[in-house]
């Protein structure tokens, strides 16, 4: 068939096909798409001119990405994500989660104890000015706990914690790609820093103000950091041991596995920032209430991560 004949026979259909793409839902889309694929194949085997082939190819491409498009129902699935996707994915990657947790909590506790008994060691790690600032923040005589602030300073601190802490988590995750070494670095570095500050303040006798401030948000924030590191280890492990697949494929698979964990960690950072800015800093609430709330949050979070979203076995 001559090209001009082919064009004049089918151009009506192609115009319709273009038109159908504009519409929201058209029942004819799949049939039209197959027709277009057929026309493209014909045009190619008959070696029609490039402009015609390109036109059909593009039309097929637009139909392809329209018909095979995934529904972006991430927001709609939000409930399902917290109900089972997030906690069950944390448990599925238990090895990495335990590894990250121990690389985070062990150095934290060890450095806290070391500094408690040998507070001078802290000056090797943290500058004199920074420690003075920390000392000022948790001084029992000050009106508010944590960083000094005015009334609307809560919002400022919320933004600060959200940006600062979540960025730490994201970096720990991304750095996990360096065979896990980067994630381990971020975990241990932050653990030692937090541990030193804790040990230093307790040694000074500021433990009441210190625990009053940190107890509320400690569960969400510390677990979120550990989970970010765990997500990084999932990536890192796929590089070291890609199993039977190509390394690139293994990494892509690992990224899919790590995504729910890092997205969940992000939500925990968000909650931690909320608590840290609007609850932890209020000095008027008695210490025992704050500690109880802190312990309650720890139990709640651990219970959630261990037990939420398990399927009932009948």
């Amino acid at each position, binding site marked *: *068939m*001559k*090209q*001009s*004949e082919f*064009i*004049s026979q089918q*151009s009506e259909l192609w115009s319709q096909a*273009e038109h159908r793409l504009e519409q929201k839902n058209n029942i004819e889309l799949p049939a039209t*798409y197959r027709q277009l*694929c057929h026309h*493209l194949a014909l045009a190619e*085997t*008959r*070696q*029609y*001119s*490039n*402009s*015609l082939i*390109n*036109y059909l*190819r*593009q039309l*097929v*491409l*637009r139909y*392809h*990405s329209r018909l*095979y*498009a*995934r529904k*972006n129902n991430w927001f709609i699935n939000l409930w399902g994500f917290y109900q089972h996707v997030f906690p069950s994915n944390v448990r599925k990657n238990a090895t990495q989660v335990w590894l990250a947790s121990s690389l985070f909590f062990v150095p934290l506790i060890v450095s806290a104890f070391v500094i408690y008994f040998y507070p001078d060691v802290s000056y090797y790690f943290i500058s004199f000015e920074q420690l003075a600032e920390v000392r000022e923040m948790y001084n029992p005589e000050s009106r508010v706990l944590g960083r000094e*602030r*005015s009334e*609307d300073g*809560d*919002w*400022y*601190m919320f*933004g*600060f914690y*959200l*940006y600062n802490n*979540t*960025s730490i988590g*994201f970096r720990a*995750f*991304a*750095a996990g*790609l*360096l065979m896990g070494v980067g994630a381990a670095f971020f975990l241990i570095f932050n653990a030692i820093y937090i541990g030193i500050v804790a040990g230093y303040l307790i040694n000074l006798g500021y433990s009441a103000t210190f625990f009053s401030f940190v107890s509320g948000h400690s569960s969400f924030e510390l677990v979120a950091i550990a989970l970010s590191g765990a997500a990084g280890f999932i990536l890192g492990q796929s590089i070291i041991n890609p199993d039977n697949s190509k390394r*690139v494929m293994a*990494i*892509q698979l690992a*990224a*899919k596995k790590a*995504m729910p964990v*890092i*997205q969940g960690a992000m939500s925990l950072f968000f909650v931690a920032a909320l608590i840290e800015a609007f609850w932890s800093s209020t000095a008027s609430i008695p210490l025992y209430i704050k500690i109880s709330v802190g312990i309650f949050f720890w139990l709640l979070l651990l219970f959630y991560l261990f037990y939420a979203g398990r399927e009932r076995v009948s």
Partner: protein
Amino acid sequence: MIPKVDNSVYYEIETPEGTALSFAVAGLWSRAAAWLIDLSIRIVIYIVLAISLSITGLFGQGLLLIAFFVLEWFYPVFYEVLNHGMTPGKKIIGIRVVDMHGLHIDWSSSMSRNLLRFIDMLPLIYGVGFISLLMTRYSQRIGDLVAGTYVIYDEPILTQSGAFSFLTSAQINPEFQPMITALSKQERSAFVSYAEREQLLSDARKQELLELIRPALEHYNIRVNTDNLKQLARVVADTNETI
């Protein structure tokens, strides 16, 4: 299917219908330009926010920090997922992100590729990403490799009335018939391609290309000029049938 006459690299996919589709992969400079535009947009937003929120004191500064957090980490994610793989910068440059099936990317892939940006930015101004782009076949940075995504050129939408309409509308001139057989199949398709792309070429380039075919046609007493080119091309295109 696409003649490899240019320096572009094509990422090819095959649809379930058995149709092969290909995408021209965007290289380092177009991606860098898109990134620079996006960066400028974010900086303008920060300046506007900083000025307008400065009257609200610490509360405003808090909002500014929240905006900074959202824009630094999620600006590309929202655009890539909700705007067919195009941030404003990519849209201006004419590139977009697709997944390994050539489809618009989803939340997870977009988050992977943008969180991994941290690695690409090491040690400074995208050093790792730069090396990765140069070393991979499809110009992918580390984030693209991990998420399985490709940055490709977004072709402007073609219309029937544009490129090939003259192939049915141009007048048929019978005196062109005899010379057609003198041209080889390759010469004929090259000639039609030229006619189709003519309006995209500069005058000097047109002259240059016409010189190549002029001797062969003059042998048959046909003088090609811009007036009869399309008529000639129609005749040539219609003889290009092999089935």
